[in-house]
């Protein structure tokens, strides 16, 4: 860990304080030319990635985004130009030692199959010669951070985990030595959409807590909009087409290339900018296991609802049965825990619509980071939110045109 790593508070746009433990990355006139190729893979790239921000690299395949990423940890050496992290030229350091101070997360996790989960996470701490106790504590902490129970998963081998779990361990491995900078190469590309959404939400939560500087390559514009503080859109030769916040990229694409890339339906894409916790939740009827079923049904019917959210003793939703199924029971009991798909409050409206469309309830249960029940959202709450947003935008525009007129 470099001593110059900054630990200070920085206020983000929403005014709340946020931790920054990241370091600034600067690329200056970076060129990468492969022998025998006419055009440079990366042609004169200069960017600054501010400390503590998430920058998403996106562009068509072969545009040099991955090459640019890998030059930051010297997996690929630039032909010319300088790259600095926190002001230090990365060429001034031994490549292996440099990489130990930069987190690296790869598609699918790329876990070492012959090492246990704990040993996979401990790879970098071991290289840094931490003592055993410290490594064990850190492993525990990280498994907790990525939502895996340490006691259950520590000694498992990667093949005994699902794709999403492997990816979580991959993230934990990248964060193991608490690096100020984390590089991610299509981290969530290899998992199914629901798991991907979950992992993205979790990554946002982790990032809010840690404030690393993250550079992430993706090919999914929705992912870029959702995760990025800034998006860098590349065209061939790693030419910068636009480097701006997701809001600005959507509202004002710099040129036709960006507009094409972002694609049609950018109002729809705006859905990726709003979070579920900005919505007004519907107050749904809830009941706990062991409660009187008839009472719950009565309360639901009084509220005009056809189903009841069942919570466990820690307030986490576990089932969403229909009234007609509860009528015959005396107390509420969940025999078979169904795979209840819930929505993280940090998920985007896009994710919310996705979840609702695949649910038979025409709605989705929202939970917080600890899986506790918060409320229910339905299509109406989403459209209501869009309407208020549109109204606000229109008002702002009218105000602007009035200003211009006067």
């Amino acid at each position, binding site marked *: 860990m470099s001593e110059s790593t900054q630990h200070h508070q920085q206020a983000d746009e929403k005014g709340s304080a946020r931790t920054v433990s990241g370091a600034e990355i600067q690329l200056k006139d970076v060129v990468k030319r492969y022998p025998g190729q006419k055009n440079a893979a990366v042609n004169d790239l200069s960017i600054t990635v501010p400390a503590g921000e998430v920058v998403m690299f996106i562009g068509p395949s072969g545009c040099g985004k991955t090459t640019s990423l890998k030059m930051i*940890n010297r*997996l690929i050496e630039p032909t010319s130009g300088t790259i600095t992290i926190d002001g230090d030229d990365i060429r001034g350091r031994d490549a*292996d*030692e*440099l*990489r*130990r*101070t930069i987190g*690296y997360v*790869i*598609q*699918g996790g*790329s876990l*070492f*199959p*012959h*090492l*246990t989960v704990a040993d996979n996470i401990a*790879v*970098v701490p071991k*290289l840094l010669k931490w003592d055993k106790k410290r490594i064990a504590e850190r492993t525990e902490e990280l498994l907790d951070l*990525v*939502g*895996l129970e340490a006691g259950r998963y520590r000694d*498992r*081998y*990667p*093949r*005994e*985990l*699902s*794709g*999403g*779990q492997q990816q979580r361990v991959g993230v934990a*491995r*990248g964060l193991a030595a608490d690096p100020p900078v984390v590089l991610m190469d299509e981290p969530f590309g290899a998992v199914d959409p*629901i*798991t991907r959404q*979950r992992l993205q939400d*979790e990554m946002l*939560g982790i990032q809010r807590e840690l404030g690393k500087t993250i550079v992430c390559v993706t090919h999914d514009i929705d992912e870029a909009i959702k995760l990025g503080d800034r998006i860098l859109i590349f065209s061939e030769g790693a030419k910068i087409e636009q480097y701006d916040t997701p809001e600005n990229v959507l509202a004002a694409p710099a040129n036709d290339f960006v507009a094409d890339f972002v694609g049609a339906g950018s109002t729809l894409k705006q859905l990726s900018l709003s979070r579920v916790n900005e919505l007004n939740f519907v107050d749904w009827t809830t009941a706990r296991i062991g409660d009187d079923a008839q009472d719950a049904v009565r309360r639901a019917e009084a509220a005009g609802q056809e189903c009841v959210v069942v919570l466990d003793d820690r307030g*986490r939703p576990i089932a969403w049965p229909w009234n007609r199924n509860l009528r015959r029971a005396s107390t509420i009991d969940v025999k078979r825990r169904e*795979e209840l*798909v819930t929505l993280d409050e940090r998920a985007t409206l896009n994710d919310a619509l996705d979840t609702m469309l695949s649910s038979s309830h025409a709605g989705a249960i929202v939970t917080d*980071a*600890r*899986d506790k029940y918060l409320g229910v959202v339905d299509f109406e709450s989403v459209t209501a939110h869009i309407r208020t947003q549109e109204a606000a935008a229109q008002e702002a525009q009218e105000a602007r045109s009035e200003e211009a007129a006067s």
Partner: protein
Amino acid sequence: MTDLATPPSTSASTPAEGSGGFRTWLSRKGVTRETLGMLVVPPLLIAAVFVGFVIWRQTAELDSIEAQQLRWSEIGTLFREHLALTVTSAIIVVALAVPLGIALTRGALRRAAPIVVAVANAGQAAPSVGLLVLLFLWLGSGFWTAVIGLSLYGLLPVLRNTITGIQAVDPTLVEAARGVGMSNVGTLRKIELPLAIPVIMAGVRTSLVLITGTASLACFINAGGLGEIVQTGIALFRFSLMVTGALLIALLALFIEWVGRLLEIAYRPKGV
């Protein structure tokens, strides 16, 4: 943040109670029912055939030449010689072929790999008797001449499997290892070699069996071994000696192949 996805439940991940412990251990080691059969059947077969041979040997009417050649002490000596030839050659093969194979997957030497494999291929394609005789003409008779010949002969499988095994390691894993800060040597030691071990060990097993069989020719250059029983049988036309020699060599080869399998399982990294 609980998991949406439950882990693919494998028998390996849930340690079975009590007596299931051994089975769990086996399945962790990647031992399936078929391989378990391959582990249990050969030693039983070898033991059964050997017991049959002992009974025949103790009860049959042998003439003086047969009795001379089939003394237990004589068989024991030849067996020890055969085993010494095999094990020494195999150790030399591993000591040479594994480092050579590793070197041929690194840096600039990578380009030399096909050439070296071609040479080793030629070494194996050459008739083994011819190879031994040529070495005899050059170096004279004896144990070490035979060992050199056998080592040359057994080099290829280990060399080829070392190269293949290392090349077959998923390149994204190698890049992941380098990407988190492992050195070139560290990546080889901690990632590439452990993952290549099953393939390398399969090569060692093939090589061991080849050497065991070929060592029966060592008697032609006066280096002993069970081949002598066969040779005596041919020279003096004693059918019983020919069969005995061939049988004992076959049993030893089977036994060595079985040991090779055990080594393969013992050295296989967990979780693969």
